[in-house]
């Protein structure tokens, strides 16, 4: 662009720092790197280097405190895929994810729709359902431990109230409990993982509910009226025609974030079973395995291998989410 020396009027209207305007660019350039520098260095040191280290160590038998280590190839990974205890780890993690994600998404959606349709008290329910999201999970785990205590726990005490009533006839579980004793929720390998799942759902669905509520308020009200005029008589028809499609992007996000959080379950497992990951390792989830193998037992190679696997899962999920969002952008 030629820059002839035109008097004032012309000059004022040109935007001052354009790329052709050399001085600001140089200033920008230096300033920009100074401004991003610290973030960049920290990103590399705290996020990328550790990933690389984990990647490398997963092929070794390194342990903290020893001076040397051996390259052992993919032996760690082979162990992961052959040993029974790691199979239990995958089973526990997948059971947890596959249970908690659909349930907490569905409950979040259900609660959001119910609350959205209510004029009064909606805010109260919203507040209460959000409380577990705010609360320190470790503290709440301990509270749950008391709730589930086999003898003095509130749950079994409540169940006992049902003994001798009609309920006992229609609900075999209750009858069994009354005749013998109620389950030792946290000590029984049949129940342990489901208890963890339940707490996961309990803790997480309020978060999803809030996201869905935000999604619902942004649905244009006239769309519902249009659906009604178009002959969508039942609530289900209107849900299919208007609500569900409008919540598509929210759902993609909610599912991914719930998934990633579900993969990271740790606090409850550690609080209930500080050693060993539950009865018969039935709740031996990946984060706990990393903690136990890598930190407590100093088997860093195997811990790193689990870390790498874990990262792969999480990255894969996020990439799927991004792809879905991208596809949905053009309505």
């Amino acid at each position, binding site marked *: 662009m030629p820059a002839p020396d035109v008097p004032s009027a012309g000059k004022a209207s040109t935007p*001052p*720092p354009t*790329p052709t305007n050399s001085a*600001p660019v140089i200033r*920008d350039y230096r*300033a*920009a*790197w*100074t*401004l*991003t520098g*610290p*973030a960049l260095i*920290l*990103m590399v040191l*705290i996020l*990328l280097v*550790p*990933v690389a280290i*984990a990647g490398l160590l997963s092929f070794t038998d390194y342990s*903290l405190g020893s001076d040397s280590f051996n390259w052992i190839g993919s032996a760690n990974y082979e162990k992961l895929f052959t040993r029974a205890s790691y199979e239990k780890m995958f089973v526990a993690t997948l059971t947890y994810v596959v249970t908690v994600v659909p349930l907490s998404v569905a*409950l979040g959606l259900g609660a959001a729709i119910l*609350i959205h349709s*209510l004029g009064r*008290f909606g805010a109260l329910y919203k*507040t*209460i*359902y959000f*409380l*577990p*999201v*705010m*609360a*320190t*999970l*470790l*503290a*709440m785990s*301990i*509270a749950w431990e*008391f*709730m589930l205590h086999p003898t*003095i726990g509130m749950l079994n005490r409540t169940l006992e109230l049902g003994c001798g009533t009609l309920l006992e006839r229609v609900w075999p579980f209750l009858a069994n409990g009354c005749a013998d004793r109620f389950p030792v929720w946290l000590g029984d390998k049949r129940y342990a993982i489901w208890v963890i799942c339940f707490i996961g759902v309990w803790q997480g669905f309020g978060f999803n509910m*809030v996201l869905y509520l*935000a999604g619902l308020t942004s649905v244009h009200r006239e769309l519902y009226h249009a659906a009604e005029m178009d002959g969508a008589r039942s609530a289900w028809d209107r849900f299919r025609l208007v609500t569900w499609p409008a919540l598509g992007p*929210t759902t993609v996000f909610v599912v991914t974030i719930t998934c990633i959080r579900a993969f*990271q379950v*740790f*606090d409850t497992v*550690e*609080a209930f079973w500080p050693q060993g990951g539950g009865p018969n390792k039935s709740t031996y989830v990946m*984060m706990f395995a*990393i*903690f136990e193998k890598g930190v407590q037992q100093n088997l*860093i190679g195997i811990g790193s291998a689990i*870390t790498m696997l874990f*990262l792969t899962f*999480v*990255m894969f999920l*996020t990439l799927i989410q991004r792809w879905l969002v991208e596809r949905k952008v053009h309505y």
Partner: protein
Amino acid sequence: MTRDWWKHLILILGMIVVIAPFYLMVSYSFKSPGEIERGEGGFFGRQELMVDERCVSLRAPDRKDIAAASQRFPGQTENAIRTALIAEAKSACSMRPVVFNYTKAFSEAPLLRYLLNGIAVTVSIFLIQAVVALPAAYALAKLKFWGREAVFGLVLFCLLIPVHAIALPLYIILAKLGLTNTYAALVVPWTISVFGIFLMRQFFMTVPDDLIDAARMDGMGEFAIVWRVMLPTAIPALLAFAIFSIVAHWNDYFWPRIVVTGNRDLFTPPLGLREFKGDGDGSYFGPMMATATVIVTPLIVAFLLAQKRFIEGITLSGMK
């Protein structure tokens, strides 16, 4: 209301399940061990005076005490004096369960210290995150420079890495540097919030260029612009991010559990609670629940006071 009764029914049932552990936690923190054991006393317990056995046994009179007290009880046998002293100790050690539970929570373990640790760690994490993220976000949003796309690509890539997932290599690095069991270990991995950078960048993109150009015309340098122009405009977004960050780190248990072992002075609140659980016998349920209540309460109260902001902050990650 009448037509919606079934909705309320469902929501109230859900509410009971959601509230139950909170109810139990607070209720137990009010009750005596006996009441907890037998499940009596409603929500507040009966608050009958109870005797703290440990306190009594600590005050158990030995010979010296008896000798010292003999003047107060002239002409009595040694045994009688002992009984009287024990009775005195008992009355001195008796208190309402709620007082017992909460004093125990603070005296048995340095809970106050834990709380202060928690505050120090969460606040410094947030401050460092902001100091690192704001300039970077500004540069990525508003400055044109060679490599900007690459840096932003790196940010997007790093968003894929949850810090918890790479806890093990981070732990190894810190251990090698001899930094485990320090405050630094609690803070360092969180100093960079890629999410914060991303978020603030998205926010800064909406700030008009004219504002920045005007600041440049006024003679401000880029640093001055970040702190004197961008920061004030970003306060709402930053506040939301602050809530997001503080809630996450106050409640975090996994990372402190890894890098702090043994050194009680560094314990964050969840670690303190965990320790309580470790050595608790039956009689400590009350104090333990009092500790849990104390740890959970600050955020819950803040949440109840500024609900909208909190929900905004916590669901911030939804704004992507």
